């Protein structure tokens, strides 16, 4: 039996039992009430109680059995699981109906069950993080068994190209010095280059827009400007990637050609600029929030000393808001580091260690995508290298986020 069939049969058994449990439980409670005995809870709560005492153990049995099957510890035929589950359900059903007494605190028991259920849902987010960490670390460990950590961190040559031949059993075709070389420095250089360009575009525009919205604009203009700028945050990254590759890159190549410079058609400047455009709304709305939460008394104090508005902004408001602005900056950096589609579509694939933004460079995320979309087997070092890169990316962005959260919290405490 397939998984789908088993699930359907299971539901076909459990749903009628559930209905029966609810109505029988409620009937029993209603009958008791009709005899003039005072119940602890409402009749339908007894109904729900018998549903729960039927379904929860049955679901638990089904869940544990399928988990064990999945892990391969035991191999139960699905018919057996089905029968075990339905037997448990029937037992729970009988037990639940018997347990209904006037003194049974069904309401409180249901409340506690809900609390556990909700806690379980809340724990899923923790499990997601744990799963990210575990899966990425586990695969990265397999990678580091073949490539030394030191070489990965400090090596300046990234050419995984040959390793897939080995994995395909054609290792003898690999040229001299064979095997892949996994020195990640050129990738991180590309990532930092694109991030630096993006921040150079987005920080001034974003911060000045935020100052305009919070210090100069009237309420009405602010109500127009803010949502318009936030349109930029809603545009999918694949669209930005197309914009960068098809429109911005040729313009940059033309401009560079005008000045007699030679720009590559997959230069890193174009994705950098477009990524900067994408990050403008993050910087502007976060800084705007922070600047707005600076107490008015600080500004008034400065005005009283005879400063102009811009002097107030530069010497009082911005310094006071600095922790918040820095944290917005860090969040922007973390977005730029992890941004994928723009660089995949507009940046190069050749690892290149250079300072010239008109040359093509490649980034960490580009390599993650390319090593996972090829035809290599999952065990080849090239595929596994994606997880090693992902691990580093995860650690760096997580650190930036934590720093930024702590800074904002300190800032809020200072003025609240």
């Amino acid at each position: 039996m397939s998984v789908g069939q088993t699930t359907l049969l299971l539901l076909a058994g459990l749903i009628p039992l559930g209905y029966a449990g609810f109505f029988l439980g409620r009937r029993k409670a209603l009958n008791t009430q009709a005899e003039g005995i005072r119940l602890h809870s409402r009749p339908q709560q007894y109904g729900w109680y018998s549903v729960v005492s039927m379904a929860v153990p049955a679901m638990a049995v089904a869940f544990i059995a399928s988990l064990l099957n999945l892990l391969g510890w035991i191999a139960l035929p699905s018919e057996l699981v089905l029968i075990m589950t339905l037997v448990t359900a029937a037992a729970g059903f009988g037990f639940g109906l018997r347990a209904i007494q006037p003194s049974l605190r069904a309401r409180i028991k249901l409340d506690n069950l809900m609390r556990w259920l909700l806690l379980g849902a809340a724990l899923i987010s923790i499990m997601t993080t744990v799963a990210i960490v575990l899966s990425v670390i586990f695969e990265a460990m397999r990678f580091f068994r073949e490539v030394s950590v030191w070489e990965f961190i400090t090596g300046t040559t990234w050419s995984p190209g040959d390793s897939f031949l080995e994995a395909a059993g054609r290792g003898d075709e690999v040229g001299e010095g064979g095997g892949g070389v996994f020195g990640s420095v050129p990738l991180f250089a590309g990532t930092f280059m694109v991030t630096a360009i993006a921040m150079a575009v987005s920080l001034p525009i974003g911060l000045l827009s935020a100052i305009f919205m919070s210090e100069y604009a009237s309420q009405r203009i602010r109500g127009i400007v803010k949502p318009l700028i936030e349109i930029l945050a809603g545009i999918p990254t694949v669209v930005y990637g197309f914009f960068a590759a098809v429109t911005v890159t040729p313009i940059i190549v033309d401009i560079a050609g005008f000045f007699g410079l030679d720009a590559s058609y997959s230069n890193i400047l174009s994705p950098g600029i477009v990524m900067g455009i994408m990050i403008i709304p993050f910087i502007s709305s976060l800084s705007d929030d922070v600047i707005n939460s600076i107490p008015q008394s600080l500004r008034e104090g400065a005005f009283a000393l005879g400063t102009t508005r811009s002097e107030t902004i530069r010497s009082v408001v911005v310094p006071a808001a600095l922790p918040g602005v820095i944290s917005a900056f860090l969040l922007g950096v973390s977005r730029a580091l992890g941004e994928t589609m723009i660089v995949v579509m507009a940046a190069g694939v050749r690892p290149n260690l250079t300072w010239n933004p008109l040359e093509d460079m490649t980034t960490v995320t580009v390599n993650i995508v390319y090593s996972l979309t090829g035809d290599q087997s999952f065990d080849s070092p090239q595929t596994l290298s994606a997880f090693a890169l992902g691990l580093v990316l995860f650690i760096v962005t997580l650190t930036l986020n934590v720093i930024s959260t702590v800074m904002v919290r300190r800032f809020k405490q200072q003025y609240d």
Partner: protein
Amino acid sequence: MSTRKLTGSANNPQIRRRYRAEKRFKAYCIGAVSIAFAIIIAFFTDIISQGYTAFWQYQVQVTIDYNDRAERLGQFALDRDMREVASRGATRSIPRAIDRNPDLLGTTEERWVPVKAEIDQYLKHGRDILEAKHEEVAAAPELPDKLRKKVDALIDEGRIESAFNTRFFTTGDSKLPELAGIFSAAVGTLYVLGITLLCAFPIGVMSAIYLEEFAPDNKLTQTIEVNINNLAAVPSIIFGLLGLALFINFFGVPRSSALAGGLTLGLMTLPIIIISTRAALRAVPDPIRQGAFAMGCSRWQVVRDHVLPSSLPGILTGTIIGLAQAMGETAPLIIVGMIAYIPEAPSGVFEAATVLPAQVFTWASEPEQAYVEKTAAGIMVLLAVLLTLNATAVFLRRKFERRW
């Protein structure tokens, strides 16, 4: 007198310098906002000007001759002249049609079919430029002289016409650009978003209820909160790695399937829904809860009957925004393999599927000129849907949000 003195101080060179600095600074700020606006306008103009042509397509009127050679290869249903003009894909279905209905053999039929992509491109972009004898002739799409004369003649006869491109909305991907459409990607998007919603919405709302209404203020709760905030800022590609390692390699979900993509995006959308639901729950004032408690409700009853109904608009708004974000996401889906070539719409969540942004990505990496307008048109559809979703969210919030 005093007025004159004030004027005097305004004439003070130092003060005038400071006023000029003030004006300069304000101009910088306005300049920054203007640059942002200019970018938005340039961006939309660029996409629309590249994409709008894809919604029209040149068609040619051909005579389809159901002869016995066409029974084997559809191409032979057209005469030699038309074979050069009409799309190769237009006659593909002819052998099957004859197979299904043998009575067709020997009959003929007049039909409008799409022209080849390069002719379409020439008619859309090249013809006017060539006729205007513009300098950009070199960059314009060109056709061999013989073919061009034939196309021009057909136009004069009225046998080539431009029509609305319904095919773009009703077919899937194709290796022939003139036949490629977004239908299968749209169906894939629906499947993926359905699964995303099914897994992220209940879990997200339940987590938020726990954190806002039930959780005691202890270490566990704080850990969960910090964790959710961090999860919201994890790069989406990392969720792709998680989906690959967890769902595909560990749980054995089929690669490229809508299920794998939906689950991955579900985990990614979860923190967004939790955060917005918590904000909506927090906006419900305490007296509502206290009133319900005073009537003897249990905590769950308070939440179910009082807090949830009043915060529902806020929760829905947050969910729509989260879904809109998931809909534009590409990187994690590429990692779980959703960039396969999908000509037919998937009919289930276990089948290989693709989504709109991934389709845009696939087209963007095709070398033919004809795919550029397809890409831009796909982007226009995607942006239109996203804009509608976000507008719905804003509308819901405006209309149903209660001020306490």
